[in-house]
């Protein structure tokens, strides 16, 4: 039984980053962006929405791939 190791406490900025970069909410946001993009792609109301649908889906998909590597 040696002396207890000191517990490493993360610094303030690290803790804030960890709290902000959690996978769950970011994945939900990416999912919503993809769903909005798919709606824009297939809606019958307004052509400009269709025009910008692909970039929306692409953004959501890339975001999903990136944020799925964030910690839980």
């Amino acid at each position: 039984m040696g002396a207890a190791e000191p517990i490493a406490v993360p610094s303030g900025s690290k803790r804030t980053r960890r709290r902000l970069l959690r996978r769950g909410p970011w994945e939900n946001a990416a999912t919503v962006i993809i769903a909005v993009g798919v709606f824009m792609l297939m809606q019958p109301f307004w052509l400009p929405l269709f025009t910008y649908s692909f970039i929306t889906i692409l953004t959501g998909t890339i975001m999903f791939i990136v944020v799925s590597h964030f910690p839980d």
Partner: protein
Amino acid sequence: MSEPQDSAADKLAARVASATPEPLARRVRGLSDRAIAWLFISPTIVLLLAINIFPLIWTIYLSFTNYKANRINRPIEFIGLRNYERVLTDTDIWHTLQVTAHFLCWTMTLQVVLGFGLAWLINKQFKGHGLWTTVILLPMMLSPAVVGNFWTFLYQPQIGLFNYAVSFVTGIPPSSFQMIGDVNLAPWAIVIVDTWMWTPYIMLICLAGLRSIPDYIYEAAEVDRASKWRQFWSITLPMVLPFLMLAVLFRSIENFKMFDLVVELTSGGPGSVTELASINLKREAFEKWRTGYSSAFAIILFVTVFGAASIYVKALNKVKQR
């Protein structure tokens, strides 16, 4: 009991070892476990790269060019994002995606309602429920080409059974309407056939969800004097919902890519009222030979399916965690 087997395996290993040429055996002996593992999976990886990844990268490249596959001697010109710009401002493409949306929304709604209803009935474990499960699952096991072909006969206005069935129920003369030839009815004709074919799939997944609910939850609800209606909304539906979501996502992705069944039934007609996105893509690529343009359209559809598949994987993980 296992000793003779062990000795047989040892004998086989010794025979293989003696048959291996000495230089090769010496080289393999020097390899680490990790290297041997890579050696075994490398043929699969090479095959995967050649069959899946290379065509994808090649299509991405072609989508930025004016390449036409029927004029292979014409120099390929890099035109940047112009193909994407054309696809995303083309009202014909927009129309095909609306047709796809109509097909997708109605097939999913009907399949969920009917599939869940059938699963709920089959789960009642009545006499002969096993036989009925098999009968209901039959359409799902058929090839789309076969289904498309025989539904074309069923929809014939003169001899088709479907028209006679509608006539029997409604009193309308059977030859007075054409399911495939009519502009208003054709989109519904493809919805009916897809629903007939794929409702059993939704039913099967819902049935798995229903069977996974333990009886003691219902017993506890009975003790608390919860009505059947309350039990359905508070126990059955929430516990089946992840399974149902999974089935809907999977079928949505499949129906977004739907090609064979609709080509066999209507070939996209009459006019273009049943021309789904993938049928239009095939026409652009192999009838009009606009390879660069159709590659851009294919990439747009691919990214859409990939995005939807990401949601699918997320839903799958949630089901696994339960």
